[in-house]
């Protein structure tokens, strides 16, 4: 593994305040569930725990992490993540692991609470770096991530219009790289990417949502089946680089950051103000993007997603929006096993 230029802080969830990591002088490094580390997580966790978490733990136990990782931020977003923090601390007592609490909702009390968690995280990061970032450091890091988010917003616009060379696979590759290196390098790369108006991508427009699907080749697989992913809403995709809220001089940056992370398009682990609203949001976004069908993807044993899928399926049926649900284990192979179903689905809606 190539060491990063400066020290990095690992993270595993799209609710992580990566701006704080950046403000503290570290490079955020998303520990994606990729690679071929040996299965060792099984000694700590049961087989029925989500493969996302287990593969991250496998990478840790197998030494497949950057040498310059100074610590890891885990978000208490679900039971699996909570247990990841527990197992990590136990398996490697010398590691620095912080597990911060994530509220279930996004009301004012929740935002205040999460802002408090972010302050604690800042102190923890400062204790490692020897220099606790101040509010202005946080603001300027947020500004850099906002630039990155805007670039990604522009690229998603190209994707929706079919004028992003390389399509969804390229976008996924960019997400992965931008999640594992300093923000400046990411901005440098993204600002150079322009639309290719000379030709428009073909395929059946689909809306893709779910949790963890970091392998760019999975997107190629969808495209090779005849799909054109016009919008994706994935934990390993657009949700990581969400636009941040306006941060004026008087505002509490931690509150602004907390609110930015808790609101907008969220993960299924966050409970909607109106129960069941997730399905309506998926449908509205799919329709707005001109999708002819919706593909939901979840890794196995992910309670937040698998609990919601039947309701979403029912809602889509009532709305006459074709829906295909896929379950995988974060590997390309597991998505590949669904090829025939994906092709049949696209044929039906194409």
């Amino acid at each position, binding site marked *: 593994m190539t060491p990063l230029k400066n020290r990095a802080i690992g993270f595993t969830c799209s609710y992580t305040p990566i701006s704080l990591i950046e403000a503290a002088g570290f490079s955020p490094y998303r520990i994606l569930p990729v690679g071929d580390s040996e299965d060792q997580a*099984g*000694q*700590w*966790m*049961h087989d*029925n*725990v*989500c493969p996302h*978490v287990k593969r991250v733990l496998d990478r840790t136990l197998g030494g497949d992490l950057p040498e310059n990782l100074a610590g890891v931020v885990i978000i*208490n977003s*679900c*039971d*699996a993540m*909570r*247990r990841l*923090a*527990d*197992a990590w*601390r*136990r398996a490697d007592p010398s590691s620095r692991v912080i*597990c911060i*609490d994530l*509220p*279930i*909702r996004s009301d004012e*009390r*929740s935002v205040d*609470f999460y802002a*408090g968690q972010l302050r604690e995280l800042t102190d923890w990061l400062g204790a490692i770096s020897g220099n606790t970032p101040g509010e202005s450091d946080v603001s300027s890091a947020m500004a850099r991530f906002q630039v990155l988010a805007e670039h990604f917003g522009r690229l998603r616009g190209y994707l929706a219009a079919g004028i992003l060379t390389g399509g969804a696979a390229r976008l996924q590759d960019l997400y992965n790289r931008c999640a594992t290196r300093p923000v400046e390098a990411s901005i440098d790369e993204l600002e150079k990417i322009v639309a290719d108006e000379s030709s428009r991508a073909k395929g059946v427009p689909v809306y893709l949502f779910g949790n963890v699907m970091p392998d760019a080749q999975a997107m190629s697989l969808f495209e090779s089946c005849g799909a054109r992913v016009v919008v994706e809403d994935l934990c390993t995709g657009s949700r990581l680089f969400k636009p941040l809220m306006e941060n004026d001089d008087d505002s509490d940056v931690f509150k602004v950051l907390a609110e930015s992370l808790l609101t907008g398009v969220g993960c*299924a*682990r966050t*409970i*909607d103000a109106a*129960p*069941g609203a997730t399905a309506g949001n998926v449908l509205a976004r799919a329709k707005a993007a001109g999708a002819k069908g919706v593909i939901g993807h979840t890794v*196995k*044993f992910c*309670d*937040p997603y*698998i*609990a*919601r*899928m*039947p*309701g979403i*399926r*029912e809602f889509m049926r009532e709305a006459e929006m074709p829906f295909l649900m896929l379950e995988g284990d974060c590997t390309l192979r597991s998505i590949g096993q669904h090829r025939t179903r994906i092709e049949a689905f696209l044929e039906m809606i194409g």
Partner: protein
Amino acid sequence: MMKEYFDGIVGGIEERIKNDPENASPRMKYALEVSRLGARLYGGSDRVAWCGVLAPFDVLSAFGVASCYVEFVGASLAASGMAGPMLEASEHEGHSPDTCAYHRAVVGAAGKGLMPTPDFLIATSCPCTAGVTTMENLARHFKKELFVLHIPQENTDSNVRYLTGQLEDMVEFVAKQTGQSVDWGAIGKAVTLSNQTSEFLTEIYDLAASVPSPVRSRDLRDFGVVMPLISGTQAALDTAKVFRDELRARVESGEGGIEDERLRLLWIQNRIQFKNPLEKILEQEHKAVVVVDELNSVTWDPVDPDDPLPGVAKRMLSSPFAGRIDARCDHLKKLVRKYKVDGVVNPCHWGCRQGTGARGLFADTLRNMDIPVLNLEVDCVDARSFAEGQLKTRIGAFCEMLAERARPA
């Protein structure tokens, strides 16, 4: 169906007590009170709240609401042998068999119209993510308001304040839903009753730790997780007292729960809810008694009746399920020492991420104490996959191994 089930238990026990009051066991009294709650939930005349496991039931009882965590319904469906069709119904609706069957059974029952429509719902983020998503699904199904209590990991002053604030919101929410004003006097009374009940519970658990233990495996099964459902009531206090008196008498006379107790076991999390012979086999074939369940413990301080919510918040945060696994493992270590257990049984309930996600961590903790663990790998609610023969063999081998080891000092 469930109404008949609970009414049947209530009627049956009342009859038995009437005919033979001398032989009314504490477990009978406990089953009666818990079933009375079930009968109220299904009776159609009380206000009903479906809740998460750590909801403050004493506070809710002060509003006169029949409130219950939905997992209790899942467990009751399993105990009554009715879970199978509910599980099938939920799977038919697309719910994955990889999820916790406590929830799946309830979702299936709701889909079949066999769960009473609640007046409102209160979810708790502890013990599990699946509990919260289930409550959201139920709120959507019943089209009723859902309140969510987020219980953070650490029992710190700022987290107590945060949770207290949420409890204040919850009290307002319940007042609005029930159309009542908040009666702080009634809430104070309810927490006073739960404080008194907790004192008895502490005594009960201390008595159960005696050698030999005065309990049989079934006496206090899931006691610590079910008693909160009726807490804040005179019935809970009376039930706890009856148990305390009975166990005290047994200890004073040196009478063990079973004759010739040889092995003492700790059971992690919840027991198997459907009828099964494992506890009987443990006792009859191996002289092994489950002397303590993981949640049979009073981990909280008395709540101030004049300012109850901060104390209720602390009580919730004190749950071994709320914090880091290290806190839960420390709790297990204390139980192992206090109850002088020879071995630990972990059912590893299928679908429970927070529980099975800690399987290796429990084993590691107990290994360091030289305490063997039996990981059963069962679904505690779904009897369809119960492999009785295999489990008997494993339990037999485990007990033989324990018997060969020297009993811990």
